[in-house]
């Protein structure tokens, strides 16, 4: 089968098996107010932890302050993700403005990320097509490398340093329409100039502000975001059945706030058109039809590490069954 034919036939599926159209409608309603307040709260928190970090520089208090700042900045991935879908806001220009702001702070180029993430949704957990999929035989070393943020930064540096010069890797061209290539290159050039300008201004003025309040916290915080993101699909079914290949993980109200409800990840994959603020309600309606559910992030990691250490890989092949998960249902 040619790749094109295979891509047309093997796709993630399951929405219509979980919720009917009529029941889905109330969850898809859009509003600007909720996401605006949420965004203001998140940015306010970043400003607060940033101020604390700045005040603590030169003292030992900088350690907890920097950690807190890195954590709230790491969770900016959540609005990056939500806005890439275009669902948190009703008004499109608001969505795109916030998307650009959080992408620039988080350090991901908006357009290529949007296309890559779209690909992840089309081919969720379909090996060879899902760009976010874990290695088939993950070792403890692979796990540590992933958790370190290395994979994230390697991909990002490629995007930031190669795209301005017109080079886009073949694996990224698979999901990027040819007509969007000039936009991606132009966007990468704009971002490079912007980041270069910030670096030049910092050097010229002798200011360490961008380094301590932005670059270092991003480096420190990325492993935390990887910690949360591993739980989304690791140890779930391989194959496109969205009822089985994505995990929702129970967590605290604080994490739900910082993570913009991304912990309801199975509900998000089943119904990507549902705005983040409706996912908790959607979970109440369909959560019992989606498996597995993680009892907590640490327990999910304990399970993943246990499987890795026994060299069992981190995904279940559909034909192999899901004895462990089924037993837990």
């Amino acid at each position, binding site marked *: 089968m040619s790749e094109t034919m295979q891509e*047309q036939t093997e*796709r993630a599926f399951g*929405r219509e098996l979980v919720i009917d*159209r009529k029941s*889905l*409608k109330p969850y*898809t*309603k*859009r509003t600007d107010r909720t996401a605006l307040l949420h965004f203001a709260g998140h940015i306010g928190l970043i400003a607060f932890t940033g101020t604390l970090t700045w005040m603590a520089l030169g003292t030992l208090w900088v350690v907890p302050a920097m950690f807190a700042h890195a954590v709230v900045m790491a969770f900016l991935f959540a609005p990056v993700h939500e806005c890439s*879908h*275009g*669902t948190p806001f*009703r008004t*499109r220009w608001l969505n795109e403005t916030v998307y650009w702001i959080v992408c620039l702070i988080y350090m991901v180029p908006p*357009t290529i990320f*949007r*296309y890559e993430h*779209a690909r992840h*949704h*089309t081919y969720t957990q379909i090996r060879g097509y899902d760009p976010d999929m874990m290695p088939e035989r993950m070792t403890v070393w692979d796990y540590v490398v992933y958790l370190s943020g290395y994979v994230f930064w390697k991909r990002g540096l490629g995007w930031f340093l190669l795209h301005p010069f017109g080079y886009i890797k073949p694996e990224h061209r698979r999901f990027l*329409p040819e*007509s*969007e290539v000039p936009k991606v290159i132009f966007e990468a050039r704009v971002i490079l100039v912007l980041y270069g300008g910030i670096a030049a201004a910092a050097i010229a003025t002798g200011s360490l502000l961008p380094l301590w309040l932005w670059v270092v916290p991003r480096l420190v915080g990325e492993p935390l975001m990887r910690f949360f993101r591993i739980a989304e699909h690791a140890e779930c079914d391989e194959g496109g059945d969205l009822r089985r290949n994505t995990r929702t993980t129970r967590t605290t109200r604080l994490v739900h706030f910082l993570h913009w409800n991304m912990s309801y990840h199975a509900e998000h994959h089943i*119904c*990507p*058109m549902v705005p983040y603020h409706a996912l908790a309600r959607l979970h109440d309606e369909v959560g019992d039809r989606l498996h597995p559910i993680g009892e907590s992030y640490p327990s999910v990691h304990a399970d993943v590490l246990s499987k890795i250490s026994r060299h069992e890989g981190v995904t279940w092949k559909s034909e192999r069954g899901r004895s462990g998960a089924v037993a837990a249902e």
Partner: protein
Amino acid sequence: MSESGTAAEWHDALAVDALEEEFIETIEVDGRLVAVCLSGGEIFATSGYCSHEHEPLTDGMVIDGVIECPLHQGRFCARTGRAVGAPATVAIEVFETRVEDGRVLVRLGQKGGAEAS
């Protein structure tokens, strides 16, 4: 059914009452999936599939005259079919509509769209 009138290609699609602001109804008309929606009191009809990855527009939204695909939220102008938001880059077909006796009629002859935009 085919409707009488000035052109034989007018087809009965669905009842006007079945339409709800912001939501899309997809229906098979003469063997083709057609999306019909109501936005700002106006009725629009387009191809029932997104041009990005051929996802049915069933469960999609229409907000301020812009249709949104339910899978990746690619966006199209409901009036012209023009792609107005990534990941959609290619227009979708749009069809003429009219209302008769509480029913929405769709003429499948292409009104516009389907060109790269």
